[in-house]
């Protein structure tokens, strides 16, 4: 893993002593975050159209102003309990490889500003998902927030299905 000062998020290297903003949200009871520049928009959850033969973590497709975008359940993606439908659920629309993709999260918490040196390396743990999908962790208000490695989570849009 990279040293603290060189942790990269997306393609952008965070400059030393420069604060960056992250949006934190909860997925299956755990706190995660994405850099704010990676997020296109956040929408309220609306039932999606089911894709036949789709794997567990692909919820289906949604209409985003005329475009058909796939929606992934982050919880299922991380190998956690599937997200239960609720009013507070949100779809975080991000762009991966230039294509919009929706990520279902339980709820959005807040925007946090952190210095790059606050980002800690992901400790070695057993879970494959953790090592691949989590880029680093930060401590915020006494809780641990996980930084998602978006490119690893949604490696390619086609990968959702066989």
């Amino acid at each position: 893993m990279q040293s603290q000062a060189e942790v990269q998020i997306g393609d952008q290297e965070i400059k030393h002593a420069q604060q960056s903003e992250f949006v934190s949200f909860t997925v299956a009871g755990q706190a995660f975050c994405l850099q704010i520049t990676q997020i296109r928009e956040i929408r309220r959850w609306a039932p999606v159209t089911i894709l036949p033969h789709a794997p567990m973590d692909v919820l289906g497709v949604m209409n985003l102003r005329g475009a058909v975008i796939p929606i992934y359940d982050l919880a299922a993606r991380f190998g956690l309990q599937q997200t239960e439908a609720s009013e507070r659920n949100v779809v975080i629309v991000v762009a991966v490889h230039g294509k919009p993709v929706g990520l279902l999260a339980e709820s959005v918490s807040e925007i946090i500003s952190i210095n790059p040196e606050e980002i800690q390396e992901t400790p070695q743990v057993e879970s494959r998902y953790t090592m691949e999908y989590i880029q680093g962790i930060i401590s915020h208000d006494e809780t641990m927030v996980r930084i998602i490695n978006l490119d690893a989570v949604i490696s390619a849009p086609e990968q959702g299905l066989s």
Partner: protein
Amino acid sequence: MSGSIQDTFFEECEELLEAMDEGLTAIEGGDHDPEVVNAVFRAVHSIKGGGGAFGLDELVAFAHKFETVFDEVRSNKVQLDVKLIQLLLRCSDHLADLVSVARDGGSVDEEHNDVLVAGLEEYLGEEEEELTFEPMGLGGPAVPLPLDLEEEKTYQIRFQPLKEMFGTGNEPFFLFQTLSELGTLKVTLDETELPGFDAMAMDDSYLAWDLTLTTKEPKSAVESVFEFVEGLCELSIVSDKDSEDEAAALAALNAAFGVPGESAEPEPSDPFEEPAPAEATPMATPEATKVEAVKPESNKSEQRGPKPTLRVELERVDRLINAVGELIINHSMLAQQIANLDVADLRDVETELEGFKNLARDIQEGVMSIRAQPVKPLFQRMARIVREASAATEKTAKLVTEGENTEVDKTVIERLSDPLTHILRNAVDHGVEKPADREAAGKSRAGEIRLSASHRSGSVCIEIKDDGAGVNRPRVKQIAIDKGLIPENADLTDAEIDNLLFLPGFSTAKEISNLSGRGVGMDVVKNAVTALGGRINISSSPGKGSTFTIILPLTLAVMDGMVVSVADQTMVVPITSIIETMRGSDDMINSLGADGTLLSIRGNFVPICDVAGALGLRKPEGDKPPGVYLLVETETGQRSALAVDDIHDQRQVVIKSLDGVCGNVPGVAAATILGDGKIAMILDSESIIAASPSSATFDSERRMSNAIAS
């Protein structure tokens, strides 16, 4: 388009090559109209001209030879016989190759080039010998010129250049010089319009000339001198002996000058080249190309002149199409919202909404028609494929095309090229017999392949029909068994055997020719057609030939669909695949074996395919049939009943591709956005039936695919 002049040249080349091909095809078909010959000549000449400007020496050298031979044809010095036409056709193919080499890089087949040049030179050699006899009036039957060549005539020519003419770099002096080569020329300058020195505009044209030409040449030859300044000058040519009455209509216009001989467009020619056919004159060519561009204004024979067109980037059109798609979705959302409103009187709104809908449809049709293009260029390219294929296999086959003006979406045309090429090559290689075999079978030596396009109730039908031997069914079946594609004891109908050709890994060529049998089979063709949302069918009768039928959707953006619900999901079934819909009752359902169910429709039994089950949306419950059935027909002609929960509506839907969203989903062709803003899956009935566990129909095919998979 892109700013590069060279790109523009290559774009123009495409059009010119098309025009050339079209002309040559017409000539091949027996149309020896001088105008057709001229059209081809002009096309070749313009390609040469542009090529010269960009220093494409190979292209220019070949085009020059080609053009020179054509010039000979045009002036009746060389007869258009079958051999020459074949040579010209091969030359046109080669010219197209040269253009693409110049554009995309690569190398030219030098040997082929030399053979063709030698072939062309043969005709040029003859020309030089015959040159002496030319004044004797060798006006052969091939290109009859209406005028008598022997008599001397005097032409009164009034020539008044417009200022635009000088802008194109044309120079009256050269015109007169060329004219003087035709006979005795007397030139008188008319400077009466010349204003005083202070009133004179520097770039305006004030001069006119009166010319008197005494020559044996026909009027067309005189007119042709002025071909490249046509539309750039005021010109009248009056012969003292003209007495043709066909120009009655023009008489009124030209009353002051008398009746001209020919009302048709003057015989075009290149004045700079005619006297020295063996010598390239690249200096003349940039002008020539320019004048070509101006010409249409003055072109009297309109059906041959190009229509005014606008070059637009495809991307812009596509953006427009997307926007219109959104508009239609937006309309249905609006309509739904209004219907949900709690307002007593909606009549006015509904009327307006109806108008909105009609307008949106109009816009959509208009936009789609921009993308629609006639299949003609595609068909013309296919003629070349057949030519090459028959040369490679030593068979004679000719391509007859029908319905060339049928318009199809541009993408469809582009993506049809490969499958059509493949089918045609196959038709020549495997379909059409060797000439001797054909004669033995009582057919003409030359095989005929008929390529036709037509619109058929909302879809485009493309048919490739050969009059060859037809599918050799016992052989096909044996090969399929040998290759393990079907079990040895398979009991297949004739249609099923024919469809074996579409299985992956199937090839019947006894010896692998360099033409077909490259390992890609008809399955590739089928995949290409299916990817376009179409289907392909084969029918064959032994000894009489085979017919491939490709049915394609008219557009790739919109289609008519039946809105149904399946396991609480709204889905759309393409209307083209549905034969009829019906509500089933329990007594219509018959069990067959453990999990097969058949629906009885007027005494026929059709296998039921539960859509929800096939899509994995519901566990098969066995005893709870959904109740509504869509009777669909597959490409093999087999029928199947798709069981859905309910039918809601029949409407036009905008197709949204799922490519890049989630890859290939079995049973789903694409998606669409419904009036409520929700996405609905567009089903692919073919693959649903194939995936359905209760389908008895496709047992044999599934066995086949299982065999392939294992």
